[in-house]
Every structure is written in C-alpha cells, then in structure tokens.
C-alpha cells in the first residue's frame, strides 16, 4: 500500500521533467533521425521519403567533405595540443600545491575556459590580424615575414586550433589536478626511494596512472571539437563579415544547408553523421576503459 503511494508520487513528480525532456530532447532527436531520410525545403508541405539518398549525396558533396575534414583536423589538433600541455601543466601546478601562488595558478589557467566564446575569439582575432595584430608584429620584429593568419586556409585552421586549445587547457588542467590529488602518495615515495627524479616520476608513474583521465579528457575535447562553431564563425569570417567563409565546419555547413539552402532533410542527415561520430568516440572510450579493467 505504502509502496503504491510512493510509486504514484514518483511518477507524478518526474512527469513534468520527463514531459519537458520528451518535448525538447527525445522528440527533436527522433525528428532529426526521421528527417534525415526525407527531403524538405522548408516551404512546401511535402516531405517525400528518400531513404539513404541524403547520405549518399553528402559523401559526394565537396562542401560537406571540406567541412568534415576541417572539423576533424580542428578536433584532433586541439586534442593533440591540449592533452600533453594540460597534463604537464597540471603536474607542475600540483607539484607546487603548497606554494602560496597555487590559487593564482589554478585561477589564471582556468580563466580562458570561463570567458565566453565570442569575446575570447575577438581577443584572438585581433592578435591574428594580418595587418594590425601583435603576432605579426612580433614575427616581423624577429626578422620574419608577416603571415596572413586568418586568410590562408591552412593557417586559419591552425588559428582555430590554437584558440580552442587555449580555451580547453584550463578544463584539462582542472580534471588532471583532481586526478593527481587522488593518486596514492606512497607509490610516489617508493619511486623516490627507488631513485626516480621528478621528471622520471612523472613519466613512469603519473602519466601511466592517469591514463583513465587522459582518455576521458581526450574524448570530451574531441567531441566538443567536432561541435566547434562560434570560434570558426568569429575568427574565420571574411572581410565582408560573412561568417566562417574561410573555414567551413560541420555545424556551419549543417545550418547553411538547412536555413540558406532550404534543405532541411539534407541538413538532418549531416546531423546524424555528427551524431554517429560522437557515439563512436564515446563507444571507443568505454571500450578502452573496460579493456584496462577500469579502476
């Protein structure tokens, strides 16, 4: 009897949240999957079923492929820069935990992550500015040639990778710091007695023992890398201010297809591909974690 009453309370209490969730999460997700198999140009009532045609077309679409490769390069590039740097930085900050500057270090490292995307991108946009930015000023001052950072297709991707890494570094450091704090202290004392220097201790003990965290941070930064949009929008806009013209990313391509090219089904197919990539990365993370027997 009591159990019954509790059951009804539970259902009633969770119903509002579940209803909202169903409306803003479940329904749109299912809609995306459904639309990906249809053709819809926003205006007509007609949404014919086209099967996998959208997907087939996508893989022949140069703009999509361009966006896909750019996004992948940005995601993996940012990860490749962020992971080792945040690990090393966290190691050093952890080593100096007892310093009175420890709070300053943690705060300063994390501020780039806290600053919202657009102002941060604005800050870097000026730095990278070919004609007015300090980066080129420093390079020229050192005797080199000014580079068209935001105009060259290759260089602008590098700029985005730098910006994204700069923003993600603080997050990585934070998570690694938590990891360091949970490492068993006696293992390091034993290593110290065995003759390990600070660097050796880091290479042979810390880094391997932190593998689960490295895995987690990798996947998280990869996934957010694949969703990159604001940074490309701001940094890589051309002189007319048209956003992201220089560097196409997946989300941009998707939104363009949906709202400018009036091909919602096509855009939905792109979204499904993005979803598949994210799911695959998550699966890999789980697989790798379990393979090591977890923790």
């Amino acid at each position: 009897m009591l159990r019954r009453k509790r059951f009804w309370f539970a259902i009633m209490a969770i119903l509002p949240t579940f209803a909202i969730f169903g409306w803003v999460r479940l329904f749109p997700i299912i809609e995306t999957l459904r639309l990906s198999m249809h053709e819809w140009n926003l205006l007509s009532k007609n949404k014919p079923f086209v099967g996998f045609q959208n997907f087939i077309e996508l893989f022949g679409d140069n703009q999509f492929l361009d966006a896909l490769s750019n996004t992948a390069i940005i995601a993996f590039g940012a990860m490749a820069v962020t992971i080792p740097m945040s690990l090393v930085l966290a190691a050093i900050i952890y080593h100096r935990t007892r310093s009175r500057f420890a709070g300053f270090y943690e705060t300063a490292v994390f501020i780039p992550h806290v600053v919202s995307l657009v102002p941060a991108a604005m800050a870097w946009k000026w730095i990278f500015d070919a004609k007015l930015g300090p980066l080129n000023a420093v390079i020229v001052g050192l005797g080199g040639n000014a580079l068209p950072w935001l105009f060259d297709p290759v260089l602008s991707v590098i700029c985005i990778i730098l910006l994204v890494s700069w923003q993600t570094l603080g997050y990585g450091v934070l998570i690694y710091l938590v990891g360091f704090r949970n490492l068993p202290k006696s293992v390091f004392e034993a290593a110290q007695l065995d003759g390990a220097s600070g660097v050796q201790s880091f290479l042979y003990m810390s880094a391997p023992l932190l593998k689960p965290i490295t895995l987690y941070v990798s996947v998280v930064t990869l996934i957010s890398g694949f969703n990159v949009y604001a940074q490309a929008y701001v940094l890589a806009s051309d002189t007319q201010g048209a956003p992201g013209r220089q560097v196409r990313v997946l989300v941009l391509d998707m939104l363009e297809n949906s709202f400018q090219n009036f091909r919602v089904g096509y855009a939905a197919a792109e979204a499904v591909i993005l979803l598949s990539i994210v799911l695959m990365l998550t699966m890999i993370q789980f697989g790798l974690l379990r393979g090591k027997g977890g923790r």
Partner: protein
Amino acid sequence: MATVEINELRKSFDDVETLHGISFSIPDGAFVALVGPSGCGKSTILRLVAGLEEITSGDIYIGDNIINDIEPKDRNIAMVFQNYALYPHLTVAQNMGFSLKLLKKSKVEIERAVKEAAEILGIGELLHRLPKQLSGGQRQRVAMGRAIVRQPQVFLFDEPLSNLDAKLRVQMRAELKALHRRLATTTIYVTHDQIEAMTMADIVVVMRDGNVEQVGRPLELYDKPVNQFVAGFIGSPAMGFLPATTKVGSNEMVFSDGQVLSKPTYATLDGGYIIGLRPEHIRLGGDGASFKATIEASEQTGSETMLVARLADQEITILLRERFDTPIGDVHAFVIDPTAVQVFDSKTGARLET
C-alpha cells in the same frame, strides 16, 4: 660498514615539535625494532632516515657519512611501506626491477637480479602478474623483493605486517627473521606490536611521545624495564600495577586493603610506590610472597588459564600455565617470586633498582 647513528634528532611539523632530541646507535647488521604507541614518532624517525621528510635539527649517520642532506636515492637504503606501495600499473618483475631500470642497468642484469630476489622470497612464479592479482602476503613479498634488489646498506620497514591476518603475520615474522639472518643487512623495523619487536629484534627501542624511553635487547627490556611505561608496554598480557606503601629498610609492601607482600624494598624514602606484577609470574603455590585475590573472570585456552582477579580494589590479570577451574567470586591465594616483583616510583615512574 652500515652502522646507523641517530644524534639529537628533532623534528617539528609547523612549529609543533614531535621528536625531542632522539639519540641512539645501531650496530652493523643489527635488526632494530622501533616500538611505541601511535603518535610516538617511530614512523617519523624512519621517514627521516629514508629522507622522505626534512630534519629540523640533529644528525643521522650511515657508516661514517652524515646523510642529512643526501637525496633518498643516494642514501643506499630501501624501504618497505605499510601498504606495500607497489606500482599498480607494473608487473611484479617490473616493480622489482624499477630501481635498476632507473640506474640504466642492462636488461640482462635486471632480469638476473630480479630472479635472484624472487627466488629468495619464493615469488618466482608471480613475476608476470599485476599487484591487484596478488594476495596480501604475496604483495608483501613483492615489496620486500623490490627492497632486496637494490642491495641496500639499510632496510627500513614501516609496520609491514599490520595489514595481514594473524596467522599470516606469524608466518611472515619467521620469514623476515630468516631473511635477515641470511642477508645480514642492518634493519630498522617500525611496529606498534611489541610481540613483533620482542620476537624479531636484536635491539628494541621503546618510544613515547617523541622521546626514547629505553634502548636494549628484548630480554633486557622485559627483565629490567627502566620505567613503568616500558614495563607496561612490553610483555603480553600486560603487567598489572598496584599502589603500595613501604618504609625504608622494611621487608614488606602494604597494599591498600592491608595485605602485606613480603618483598625486600630498596626504597630510599618512606611512602607510596607502584608495584608491578607480571601475569605469568603469579602461581598457585610454591615458594614466594603470597597474597589473596578475588576471582572475577576466568578464560580457559586449554593449556593456560587467564584470570581477572581483584586485589586491593584493583583488577589484575593472572596467567597460569595449567588448567584451573574455580568458581567466580572465590577468594584464592596466589604466590609470586619476590624478585620478580618490580617497584616503581609513583611520581616519576622510574623503576627502583633491586
């Protein structure tokens, strides 16, 4: 020559001094146990010798060298931690060979050294396992193997057996002792278990609250404890203490209930003292000083009887090496050899010499 000399060692943590000028010497090849209740500073001394903590003042010598400012890895010592501190991500062989790998020894050399140590400890078959696949006793051995491989001058043990179950502990005690006999390396062994200290050590250092109470061979500490603390700490079951009064030159000590114990006293002052009675010295009959006590509880283990009795309104423990069945509440006479009775100053706790 791996003698160890501790000289006026002091250690403070954040302005609180926890070691108050410790001094003692350890001869080459000796097995020295540091015992005492928790917080007495024994682990701190070990960690100072290892170099894991900084010395506040005082000196530590290994051989003729003062090692205060030498890095842990250059002190030629090895340590076995209480929780073994094995490298969880390395195999047993890699754990044991780690120090040699850091010294850039060749693979062949490392393999040989690891194999040798593994054979001594009987863990040859576990070389490819990870620590989490091992039992407590096996991990213990791997930790020791890791220490042996370094061929150090001094072994440091930090309560290595306290995480093992009782039976395993007894077995490992014997093995450790045998290992020490075989390797003849100077060993400093920290434990809170005085039985371990007594059975394994050549020399025992008893500590309390950051001070050394007594240093000596196990039996010395048992027969001639320097004060009440050491007397009560060493020996199991613990010595019983009762207040008694006596006069200079008298042959009697009087308990608070009026009972008189015939024991020549060497007191230099009249007044109250503390009498110490070891449970195992009290017998049912025979020659000696006798007294009466009321039985309050009795435990039979088959070969021994442990009694809790009330004498002069104090509880004392009596350990009889025979079966003795008596109803609770009975008053019984007991006998003790007067020379086994110890007398302590009631203010300082120091033992009066007999």
